[in-house]
């Protein structure tokens, strides 16, 4: 099946061929067996795509139903169990509110036992006012949900996941992946493809946890979580980066290479540079492969400076 045939098949099935082209197409189906076989397989594959899409849709529907059912299971019993507690709390809160409103609306003379002719100490009022001001300034910034989440969320999610935050393994400019000490630093590799760094961690998945750990330089722990996610491309990409940063250049090399070989992959392009880095860290054994790999990125202005250094080392 070549590109032209695919185009003709699509156009014919969409009913977009002119009357004469349609006749020509149909007569070719009779006279050209290979063409007819291609067309048959094209129709079968289209029907297969439809079946697959329907199955996916059903799976998604089932997942959504189960997700909602889980939510109901969690929320309803809690509300039901605590019905009386909630009622009591509500009554208490309303009573307190009522009392506060009542006392606030009382005439000043009834609010305190202060006599009208009592001398007011201005200094003490100033002190009270200033201490109130100080208090508000020292309050944590909990008024902004965004700030709160930003500060608290990573800690909570790590604790929830049961993973203790590990010690940083590699300092920013510490040299990694080379026993002679002239190769890659962490900062060289920190600029990651957007799929990893843009992950907001909102999904409670192994991948999100791994991204958090990766950001905390806990590559080994991140690796443990995602290394088996072989069907998830972004997990595999993150795995390759973890290997690279852990100094396991051979594994990183083969993983980045597989992304490069798959031109359908979302990580096809960014893997080229990291493939070069992985090979660089495997020098001198990888020298000839590295020279070939440099060809993949040599025209990219982004890497010119670093490439120059690598070429010097070769």
């Amino acid at each position, binding site marked *: 099946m070549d590109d032209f045939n695919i185009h003709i098949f699509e156009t014919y099935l969409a009913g977009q061929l002119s009357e004469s082209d349609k006749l020509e197409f149909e007569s070719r189906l009779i006279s050209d067996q290979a063409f007819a076989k291609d067309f048959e397989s094209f129709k079968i594959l289209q029907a297969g*795509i439809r079946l697959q*899409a329907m199955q996916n849709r059903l799976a998604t529907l089932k997942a959504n139903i189960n997700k909602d059912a889980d939510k109901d299971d969690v929320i309803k019993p809690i509300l039901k169990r605590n019905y009386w507690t909630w009622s009591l709390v509500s009554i208490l809160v309303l009573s307190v509110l009522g009392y506060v409103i009542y006392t606030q609306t009382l005439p000043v003379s009834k609010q305190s036992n202060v006599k009208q002719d009592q001398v007011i100490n201005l200094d003490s009022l100033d002190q009270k006012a200033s201490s109130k001001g100080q208090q508000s300034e020292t309050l944590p910034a909990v008024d902004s949900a965004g700030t709160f989440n930003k500060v608290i969320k990573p800690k909570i999610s790590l604790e929830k996941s049961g993973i203790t935050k590990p010690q940083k393994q590699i300092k920013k400019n510490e040299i990694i992946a080379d026993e002679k000490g002239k190769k890659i630093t962490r900062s060289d590799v920190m600029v990651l493809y957007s799929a990893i760094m843009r992950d907001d961690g909102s999904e409670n998945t192994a991948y999100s946890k791994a991204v958090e750990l990766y950001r905390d330089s806990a590559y080994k722990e991140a690796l443990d979580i995602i290394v088996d996610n072989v069907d998830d491309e972004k997990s595999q990409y993150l795995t390759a980066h973890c290997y690279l940063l852990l100094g396991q250049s051979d594994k990183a090399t083969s993983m980045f290479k597989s992304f490069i070989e798959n031109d359908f992959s979302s990580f096809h392009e960014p893997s080229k540079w990291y493939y070069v880095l992985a090979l660089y860290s495997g020098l001198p054994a990888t020298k000839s492969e590295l020279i070939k790999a440099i060809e993949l990125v040599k025209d990219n202005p982004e890497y010119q400076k670093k490439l120059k250094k690598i070429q010097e080392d070769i």
Partner: protein
Amino acid sequence: MDWIERIKSDPDKTLTILYKDLKNDTIQWIKKEFSLQSEDADEIFQTSIVLLYDNVVSGKLTLLTSHIKTYIFSIIKNKIIQLNRAKNRISSYDATEIMLGVIDEEYQEIAQEDLIKANSSLIKLGEPCKSLLELSYYQQMKLDDITLLLGYKNNDTTKNLKYKCMKRLQKIFFE
């Protein structure tokens, strides 16, 4: 926005809402009408929602002339039960078999074994080809939209990849 537009614009949410809203009535009706257990009735109901979606995506359903519930009831009655009766197998209900039956009705010249083989070839093909082909051939999405959605460089890249994917799928199919 009517149901058809809602299904087109947000199928995940709309189909789940439909399921929840119509679940009790429909399952009761199936159980009563066809003397089935709740589990089978639920499976049939879920499948009928997917068939509704399929009818919208394929352009067979462009305008609802009756209530959506009536339409779903008619899917259940006319397609699923009819298909199973034809096979003399009222006792077991498997969603994939029901879907195969529906597709089989439309593509009578395609053998079911070939269809199953094509389906498993797609699974072997994997991502992103699977999504790309589904968007193009099933959802009939325009190249512009696919390019935007999947983040490809331009329409030519998307088109070339689609052809590559289709050829790769054919290769797997004939292996």
